[in-house]
């Protein structure tokens, strides 16, 4: 199996404050990996560092090529879609415009319309609301829109930052089922940062646990789920 993303000795800084202290991990092509950790452990920072949205040092390789010096938009153009925390929805634009923005860098204009249709298959609720302002959608719908917008890029790798945040449990289940489907059917490698560890570990095939800016455990998702420390700290039993 080939490596999709390889991160070595990643250190990130907010001003004078260091948030990541030499993080190393890698993602296999086609995998669904989850990054677990408490508040402030550096999960979001890790995703932001991959997209060069925070000052960082270290090596980040995407499909074997270093991408650390690329600007955010150029990282995205390589096929790395990032669904940020808070979803980043363009609230004053319509649902359809949001989807078109997801594909704004693509040259194959013909396929975009077909892809939008495909998103409506994935998320039927978006179809009902395609002319509506995105700001009027509910939280769960906006999260679906954010995921759909990211998929419009036809990404090789998708970074999801706390997709369950603020959503009802049932909605979260649906959403994760879709992630799984995207991962299997569209062959998109996924890295998902989650606080809902139980659900994330159920679906993922690989897991990393991060504490105060360092990786403290990694392995097969099932093994991690069975680890006693993880169970006590993140799963609560």
């Amino acid at each position, binding site marked *: 199996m080939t490596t999709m993303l390889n991160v070595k000795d990643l250190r990130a800084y907010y001003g004078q404050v260091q948030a990541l202290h030499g993080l190393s991990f890698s993602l296999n092509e086609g995998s669904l990996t989850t990054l677990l950790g408490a508040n402030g452990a550096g999960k979001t920072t890790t995703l932001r560092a991959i997209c060069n*949205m925070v000052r960082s040092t270290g090596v980040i390789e995407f499909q074997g090529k270093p991408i650390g010096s690329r600007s955010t938009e150029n990282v995205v153009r390589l096929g790395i879609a990032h669904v940020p925390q808070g979803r980043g929805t363009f609230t004053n634009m319509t649902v359809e415009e949001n989807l078109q923005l997801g594909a704004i860098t693509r040259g194959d204009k013909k396929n975009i319309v077909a892809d939008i249709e495909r998103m409506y298959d994935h998320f039927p609720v978006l179809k009902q609301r395609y002319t509506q302002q995105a700001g009027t959608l509910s939280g769960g719908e906006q999260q679906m829109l954010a995921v759909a917008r990211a998929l419009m890029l036809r990404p090789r790798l998708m970074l999801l930052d706390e997709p369950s945040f603020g959503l009802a449990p049932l909605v979260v289940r649906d959403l994760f089922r879709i992630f799984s489907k995207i991962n299997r059917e569209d062959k998109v490698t996924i890295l998902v940062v989650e606080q809902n560890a139980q659900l994330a570990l159920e679906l993922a095939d690989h897991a990393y646990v991060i504490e105060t800016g360092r990786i403290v455990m990694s392995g097969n998702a099932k093994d991690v789920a069975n680890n006693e420390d993880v169970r006590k700290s993140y799963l609560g039993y």
Partner: protein
Amino acid sequence: MELFANQVLAGIATGAIYACMALAVVMIYQAIDHLNFAQGEMAMFSTFMSWQMMQWGVPYWWAFILTVILSFAGGILIERLLFKPLAKAPVLTNVAGFIALFAIVNSVAGLIWDFTIKQYPTPFGSSPFLGSQLISTHQAGMIGVTLLLLAALYFFFQFTRIGLAMRAAASLPESARLVGINTSWMIALGWGMASAIGAIAGMLIAPVVFLEPNMMGGVLIYGFASAVLGGLSSPLGAVIGGFLVGIFENLAGTYIPGVGNELKLPIALALIITVLVVKPAGLFGRPIVKRV
């Protein structure tokens, strides 16, 4: 009653000037979230360039088109050279930069073309329009061009990908970068377009106010006021705002005793502020909800 109607008509004629300038103001505000105090001077400089071309024998419409293209490139150049390096500087430092640009452009234009007033031609002629003494064919032409420009802008922003990308970059720069939009170039493009629209405004205004380095001072203030009145996020609002300001200015001059030419501006501004106190986002602007 006839006096009233005539003053309204005259107001619409002056309003066309403001509307045209207000469009340029809205354009730059959409791109950089700020009013560019040097915008009027940039438009004045463009107008002088077209005048110079005509002096060299270039026909009006060729000079017009060339000037628009050059202004577009010039706007981008100014952004890349002077304001991109200031992107991370505090907002008020950027405002100081606009003032510096104002001083430079004004002074250079004065040196090249001196401060004497020059006649500027109009392609529409200046006979009375449809027999009305208050509105000339030039002013009617100007209203037409403004509306055309408005339609073009609407089409650009609603139906082109690059227009969509510009809107996205303006409303949420970080999200825009995350879908792969180069927001820095969108800002440069905004400068270019604003500069080109400003050039069109300048060339249409010049036959009315005459050509000289300080011609845009007053016009820009009214342009700002119109754009603010209409709501800075709406090109349509800016144009309507321009006409309203023109009409009000004329009516105030006619009906309020003691209002000479000098007090017209403060009174027009006072009205706008009153409107803003009631509707802080302007007449057609999108209200902005702030959170902590």
